[in-house]
């Protein structure tokens, strides 16, 4: 893994809470390279599926465990939490249909999407999670990526699952409370974790935590949860510094500042953040 990986920071914090009575069902992405034959850093179980169908893998395992429990072929203490682990490429794109259908079926599972806002494992090409204006390996022009980041939280919440939350590794208490809460309920529980990516976002690995904190403070990464049909912001940044404080630490936004400031794009990014928080704080 790369030094300063924000995805790993979040996954480590999450795993500490979930624990080893779990089976992680993984889709193709950076974290696929954690378990390399014949070694694994995970004390629990792991199944690699493919890029598009990790939630269907969770369906098969959950159903099989339920059948075995019903028939008394395994004991309740042998049961496992089924946890889907994917990046944003799978979560926002190729695997979205499988996730939507798993929520339709009210599958009892936890979904962790580490979001580094691009196809990080292949060198940070544009994904549906890439933010407006960011330079990626496939958006190298002077304006960066011309589209806007997909609102996966809203798409997931529209299915009315048991729980949806956003977290950041740089806010570990908020993260711990949300994972703890998700572990206490059953049904589809889905988490998007911001994953600052030194390699893909082009910043010094030592800045991972600072960038995560700034994402929350500037309001560009809202920490929120949807539970019992209700949306709540868990950390409300009342004094929001300008979003460019977050942007200027990252090489992927450098073209917005040098050789001259791109006021249009910077203004558009700030406006979208302001519009989001209007009426909330």
């Amino acid at each position, binding site marked *: 893994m790369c030094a300063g990986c924000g995805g790993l920071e979040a996954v480590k914090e999450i795993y500490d809470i979930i624990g080893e009575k779990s089976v992680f069902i993984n889709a193709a992405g950076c974290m696929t*390279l954690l378990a390399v034959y014949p070694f694994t850093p995970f004390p629990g*179980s792991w199944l690699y599926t*493919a890029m598009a169908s990790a939630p269907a893998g969770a369906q*098969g*395992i959950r159903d099989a465990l339920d*059948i075995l429990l019903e028939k008394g072929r395994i004991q309740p203490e*042998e049961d496992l939490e089924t946890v889907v682990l994917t990046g944003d490429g799978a979560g926002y794109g190729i695997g979205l249909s499988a996730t939507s259908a798993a929520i*339709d079926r009210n599958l009892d599972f936890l979904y962790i999407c580490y979001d580094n806002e691009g196809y990080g494992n292949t060198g940070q090409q544009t994904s549906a999670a890439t933010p407006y204006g960011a330079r990626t390996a496939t958006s190298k022009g002077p304006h960066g990526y011309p589209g806007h980041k997909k609102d996966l939280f809203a798409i997931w919440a529209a299915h009315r699952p048991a729980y949806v939350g956003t977290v950041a590794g740089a806010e570990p208490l908020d993260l711990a409370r949300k994972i703890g809460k998700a572990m206490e309920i059953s049904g589809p529980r889905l988490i998007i974790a911001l994953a600052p990516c030194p390699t893909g976002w082009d910043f010094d690995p030592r800045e991972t935590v600072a960038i995560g904190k700034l994402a929350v403070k500037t309001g560009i990464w809202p920490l929120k949860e949807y539970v019992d049909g209700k949306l709540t912001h868990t950390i409300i940044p009342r004094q929001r510094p300008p979003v460019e404080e977050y942007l200027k630490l990252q090489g992927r936004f450098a073209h917005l500042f040098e050789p001259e400031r791109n006021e249009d794009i910077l203004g558009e990014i700030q406006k979208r953040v302001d519009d989001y928080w209007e009426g909330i704080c």
Partner: protein
Amino acid sequence: MKRTMLTGNSAAAWGARLAGAEYVPAFPITPQTEIIETLALWIDAEEMDCRMVTLESEHSMITAAGAAAATGVRVFTATSSQGLLYGMEMIYTVAGWRAPFVMVNVSRGLSSPITLEPDHNDILAARDSGFLQIHCATCQEVLDGILIAYRLAEHERVRLPVIVNMDGFHLSFTREPVEIPDADTAGRFLPQYDPENIRFRAGAPVSEAVTVLGGTPYSYFRCEMHLAALNAIAAFDECAADFADLFGRRCESVESYRTDDAELVFVMIGSFATKARAAVDSLRRAGIAVGLMRPLLLRPFPRDRIRQILAGKKGVAVIDQNLSVGMGGVLHTEVASALYGVPDAPPVLNSFIGGLGGRDICAEEFYEIASVTGKAVAEGRSLPPRLLFTGQELVEIRRLQAIAKARRKNLNGGSNER
């Protein structure tokens, strides 16, 4: 045991029921859908203790099937054609998980053009995946084949998933007399699945299907799969012998019909082979020494048995119900590879391609194939692949095209322009 009239799809559902399938991830596709509808009806009526889940695609369906099998329950599923291809990434993937389960494929020609009728390009696209393949010619074989497939998949020296194949319409929707084994005897043949080390449990962590770095560990796992698949040749004979003891019906890995004293042999798989069988009887009455060889087991490929059956024959005509575009028939190349360099191998091995998209192969065509192959034997050389398509069929197509053209002309006020 009771004897009744069943479609191939009903026979498949009975196979899954008698095998005690505990979990069925499903997705509808013509001409397979009747299988999952039948199972759903039995589950709802509590005649079958099983859980069915409808997935949103075959890709997800095969993922769920493999994942459940890897957790330690007995899994059944079914698909066809476009569905099999949509799930193809997972066909290869779950075979590598070495999680045994059984899937029925109801063969149907592949798009484009889109059709509902059968040929074998769908199932042969899964040829190299690691799934074993059993090809059925009758509805009885569909039922029996599924029971044998579970024994084979779960065999301790095999541990690979199995596809049981039948032809759409010609078997799936055709009623034939089928003997349905009683549940107790089926249970004796196929006791409860013992997953042994195949499982996910708290307190006994396992990592499955993890990344390998470099060719050596990759080759290690691929070679293991190949050796396990080869073990399935002997294992099939074991299972078939046990099956025959209990049910009195013998499934051979390669069926040979009137081949002992034959000079020419037809080679076919699937239900269209029953047409070849009827043609063999007619040709025999006309004094022509023809036989039929029909591999039931296509993966693993029963090479030795095929060599044995074809040893000393003068000519072989492989009739493929598939087309490897730009090459010819897939089964033909497989048979050729089994025979090359074998001392007693037939000197003539001809290739014919017919039955694409359900096109009939009529008796006269089998007679012509025998005649052409007989001449090739006399001349001492094999012929290039021949595609069965008659002049009359071409006339029909041209006639339809002319009608469509004329209608368009009328719509355009007499002009040929669009």
